[in-house]
């Protein structure tokens, strides 16, 4: 384990050095709020920012992603043969990602990167990405990450964890990817490991203690799917839902997508878009039959998937990292914490 001390005054200079090899991504203020964006020249991530509205999942799993292309000109030999589009998978680094947002990529991997199936778009983007996390010293009121097996200092899916100690960052270098990024930045002021770890441990305890929002889900495992599925509360929970797609789009762990083809003149593009169980179309069959016709069924699906089906299938905890974005941005204030408690009670 290597811990590097970075003077904040040298931070931006270091990032500029890394740009020779890396495309940088980070939180940028856009109008009045923060979004994760590709950072142009001389643009630096806002490391003091609160949560971005959308999670960083789009860096690896974009909302709209071109997959395949084909030439429809029958005079050409390769006409109508789908070929993978060329995408830039040169190294990229996400700066200041919240540790629990990074953990969400581990959850996405369970869907996109398995022994049996490998989604090439996700896997190539993930392989190209270095995740440089920033420990959350002052968790907000929406953060319930410690209730769902992650937390403000979780290193599970980070390559580097930065800890803000005031004028400096302590950079805990966790993986080879992280090592490469830190060295390309020219950060090499290695510090005494024991002291640094002690400082980090203190800050971590303080941050975890500051988390006010908790959720209990200990009894979900002991309940049967049907018991929860047929529970009497779903109509009441769903009443206020307007079936917009905000919760699923802001969520770092929602992984569903839909595939579309578009043609123009003699060319065709196949691409995928984030899809959402909140939409009626999500399950509408070609026959017109829809197994989830009503909004109650759709709302139930979202919570059952995150809190029951996923844990049952993968045995990796909930499909939620406690970032609180869905709680904060739901236009009608449907609160996953409340629903989880109801299911757990």
């Amino acid at each position: 384990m290597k811990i590097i001390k970075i003077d904040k005054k040298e931070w931006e200079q270091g990032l500029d050095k890394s740009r020779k090899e890396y495309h940088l991504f980070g939180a940028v203020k856009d109008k009045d709020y923060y979004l994760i964006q590709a950072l142009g020249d001389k643009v630096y991530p806002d490391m003091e920012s609160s949560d971005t509205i959308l999670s960083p999942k789009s860096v690896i799993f974009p909302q709209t992603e071109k997959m395949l292309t084909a030439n429809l000109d029958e005079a050409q030999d390769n006409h109508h043969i789908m070929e993978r589009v060329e995408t830039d998978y040169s190294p990229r680094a996400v700066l200041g990602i919240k540790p629990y947002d990074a953990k969400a990529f581990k959850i996405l991997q369970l869907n996109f990167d398995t022994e049996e199936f490998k989604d090439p778009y996700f896997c190539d983007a993930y392989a190209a990405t270095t995740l440089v996390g920033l420990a959350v010293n002052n968790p907000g009121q929406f953060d319930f990450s410690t209730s769902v097996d992650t937390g403000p200092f979780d290193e599970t899916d980070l390559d580097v964890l930065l800890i803000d100690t005031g004028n400096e960052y302590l950079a805990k270098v966790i993986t080879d990817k992280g090592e490469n990024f830190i060295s390309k930045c020219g950060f090499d002021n290695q510090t005494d490991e024991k002291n640094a770890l002690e400082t980090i441990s203190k800050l971590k305890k303080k941050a975890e203690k500051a988390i006010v929002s908790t959720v209990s889900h200990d009894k979900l495992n002991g309940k049967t799917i049907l018991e929860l599925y047929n529970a009497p509360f779903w109509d009441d929970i769903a009443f206020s839902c307007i079936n917009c797609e905000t919760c699923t789009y802001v969520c770092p762990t929602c992984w569903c997508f839909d595939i579309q083809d578009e043609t123009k003149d003699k060319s065709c593009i196949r691409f995928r878009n984030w899809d959402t169980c909140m939409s009626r179309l999500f399950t509408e069959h070609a026959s017109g039959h829809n197994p989830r016709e009503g909004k109650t069924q759709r709302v139930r699906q979202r919570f059952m998937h995150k809190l029951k089906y996923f844990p049952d299938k993968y045995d990796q905890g909930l499909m939620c990292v406690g970032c609180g974005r869905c709680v904060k941005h739901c236009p009608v204030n449907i609160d996953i914490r409340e629903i989880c408690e109801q299911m757990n009670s």
Partner: protein
Amino acid sequence: MHTYTEKIQNLAKDVLKQGKAEMVIGFKQGTIPMAANPFVAKNENDADNLIWSSTCGLNLANYLPGIKKCEGKIGIIAKGCDSRNIVTHIVENKIDREKLYIIGLPCTGMVDKKQIALLFDDEITQFSEEGNTLIVKSETKEEKINKQEYLRSNCKTCTHRNPVIYDELVSDLVEEQIIEDQFADVKKIEAMSSEEKWDFFDKLTEDCIRCYACRNACPLCYCPTCFVDESGPQWVGKGQNTDDIKTFHYLRAYHCAGRCTDCGACEEACPMDIKVRNFTRKLNKDSLELFNWEAGLDISQRPPLDTYQPDDPDDFIM
């Protein structure tokens, strides 16, 4: 606690007890500061959970078409704009007047939550109001602000704060605002050159994530299948192509022409803070200027776009 809260609870209890309605649609306290959660009270105990505050910014008329199982009447708390959308529902044959028990709520405006959030560097942890004073707290500071200065922009220009249709009222009617120039914002856009307008609308929608919260929060958007969701034929591309995004916004706005009450639910719901009323406001201005029409004021009037009058403006015909 807002002075309306107790009155709403008592009225709702009475309505439910007397069987004047089978349920009452209102708001209950949200789980986070400055949030209110649409809620249906089905019995007197439920009615204790009803609240009112200046954060009840969604339009409850939006919930009426979704209620399928109700043999008796549906009770609903309706501020000025909600009541106008109830009128629109009645005029458009979405619901019968006889099916409704309307508890009218003279409104003094809803607050702009996003504007208030900008006063703080950290998260808002508490919100309360005393008359016209809003008390907002975060971990690091407390602000006492004047509600009238932090109204949502649609509430600033509202001239129908009082419900236009009701069976009972929560309080005496409030004084209506007199607005000198109701469409100053629209005129600013009208004065732009074509290029500036393109640029303005391109920027306006650039952050749209197509979550359709604006559409789904809108009481007008009750089509069984919205044109963006049609798959045969598919009218609009599904991806993040900017032309497809703009097509959605432009077409949705036109579907609201002569029907929009400027209730502001669309902007309230938008997670990306897109000011989508910039589209519908222009159509409201046109409706007023061309047809002397404001939507949802009278159940006996047909909207101008579903009737023909010989003296309808026809300057656009060569």
